[in-house]
């Protein structure tokens, strides 16, 4: 399937860029319960870039993230994470995170668990460890609530703590599942700016899944657009085009630009699947 390949071919440009490649998916196919969730998905992510994983609900975004995390083995295809210890090269911020307000875990405790939460035994406290956690919290703008129980923080604040939790072990790849879904406009904008800054300054690959791409358009370097289990990948202006997305969906869609915003809608006079409109603006949820 040619659409599984990026419309342009920037991935095989060799040289310095190849060494920066932190994740590569080659022909990843996932069947679950007799249904094909992902169909021959191939793309790679490079250090320092922010990538949007865009698709409507049920397009396979979470499945794709689970495959990258190693929580789900693909039916076919290969996932390669660069680095000597792939499992711990990937930081992850799950979707819709709402913690029990009585949980006796402060923001700094959760970040400390990001250093060595998978190790057995009790952590030995040290000044160095404490300072490392404090620096990390400050870096994501969460220093103010370092000593508050995580469950008592707002959604946006909890998200910052989780980003710190994911970043403190120096991953090469940071995955976030729908991080903007439950945020108000201002918090969403702040989160996007923070993630873009993290990608540039720390030279890691950041991938953000979203059902709505507009909040990401100003900052994302590349798009992985998922539809019908297939993926198109490349710079936003090369992927979010009527011809590319129509091939991806298997029927005609139109891309409407309204000022800064982009809407993907089912094409008019589309007789391929008239009963199956694709409506991808912000009212999706």
């Amino acid at each position, binding site marked *: 399937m040619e659409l599984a390949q990026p419309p342009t071919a920037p991935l095989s440009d060799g040289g310095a860029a190849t060494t920066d490649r932190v994740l590569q998916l080659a022909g990843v196919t996932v069947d679950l319960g007799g249904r094909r969730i992902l169909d021959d998905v191939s793309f790679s992510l490079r250090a320092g870039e922010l990538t949007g994983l865009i698709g409507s609900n049920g397009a396979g975004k979470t499945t794709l993230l689970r495959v990258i*995390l190693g929580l789900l083995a693909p039916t076919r295809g290969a996932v390669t994470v660069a680095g000597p210890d792939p499992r711990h090269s990937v930081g992850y911020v799950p979707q819709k995170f709402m913690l029990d307000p009585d949980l006796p875990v*402060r923001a700094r405790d959760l970040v400390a668990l990001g250093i*060595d*939460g*998978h190790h*057995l035994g009790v*952590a030995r406290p040290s000044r160095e460890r404490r300072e490392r956690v404090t620096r990390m919290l400050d870096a994501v703008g969460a220093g103010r609530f370092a000593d508050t129980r995580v469950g008592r923080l707002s959604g946006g604040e909890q998200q910052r703590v989780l980003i710190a939790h994911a970043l403190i072990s120096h991953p090469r790849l940071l995955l976030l599942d729908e991080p903007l879904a439950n945020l108000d406009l201002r918090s969403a904008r702040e989160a996007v700016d923070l993630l873009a800054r993290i990608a540039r300054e720390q030279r890691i690959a950041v991938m953000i899944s979203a059902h709505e791409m507009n909040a990401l358009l100003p900052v994302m370097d590349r798009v992985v657009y998922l539809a019908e289990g297939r993926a198109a990948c490349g710079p936003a202006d090369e992927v979010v085009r009527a011809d590319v997305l129509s091939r991806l969906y298997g029927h005609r869609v139109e891309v409407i630009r309204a000022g800064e915003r982009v809407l993907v809608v089912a094409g008019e006079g589309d007789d391929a699947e008239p009963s199956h409109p694709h409506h991808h603006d912000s009212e999706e949820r």
Partner: protein
Amino acid sequence: MQALLHAIVEPGFFADGAVQIAATLGGVVAVVAGLIGVFTVIRSQAFAGHALSDIGSAGGSSAYLAGVAPLWGFVGISVLAAAAMEQIGVQRARGRDVATGIVLGVGFALASLFLYLGMTYHNSSGEIPTILFGSVFTLSAANLPLVIGLGAVALLTTLTLYRPLLLASVSPELAAARGVHVRVVGAAYLFALAITVALCDLTIGAILSTALLVGPAAAALRLTDRPHRAALLAAGISLACTWLGLLLAWDSFYWPPLRHGWPVSFFIVTLVLAAYLAAGALARGQTKRG
């Protein structure tokens, strides 16, 4: 002065052999229950703990029927029930409640059968309140090595798993993404919980044992926001309630009805409740000032 002291601590309390054994056994169990119980509360597994303790009545009564030490019955049934709960689906919240409820019902059904048969064969009903509500003054020193051994196993298991268990309690998803085997960690903790519940079954009875497991931990968690401090504090509260309960029970020998003494477990559980309420009041006071 001495009269006052005697009114508080009846003469002979510290010298009595049964008191010494009860204080040692009860103390060890109280410390283990406090430390382990903090994770029970954090993981919202109080119901699972309660089911395990109720099922303990089936273990205690089957041991009574077979004529072996009740602790073996408590431990055996508790670990078996924990395994059954894990198999039915303890890893999902909804499945967890259903699994726990099913196992709990079966436990009581077995207990009713074993107690009935035990009464018939042994021609006495004296064991029933002991199994259900505990009787720490009647325990023999022979229990001590096994109680300490089992307590150590439960503590070591929980201490070994401390970080992954805490992370999995915050979010199974986060833990799994870090390569923690969430289900294995959960099952191992359930095993430690089963042992702890069995120990509480022995000292304060199968019906009441969750109070000692969950009460001090819940009180401690109202007072501190660090899990390890909460664990130590819970152990302290649990120990204080147990020892004070022993003292009050000893004193109650001179309360009406004379020369019988009130059940120890009543005092321990009432003190645990008082500690929980006091911790709540204290925590509210702190937030007002802070």
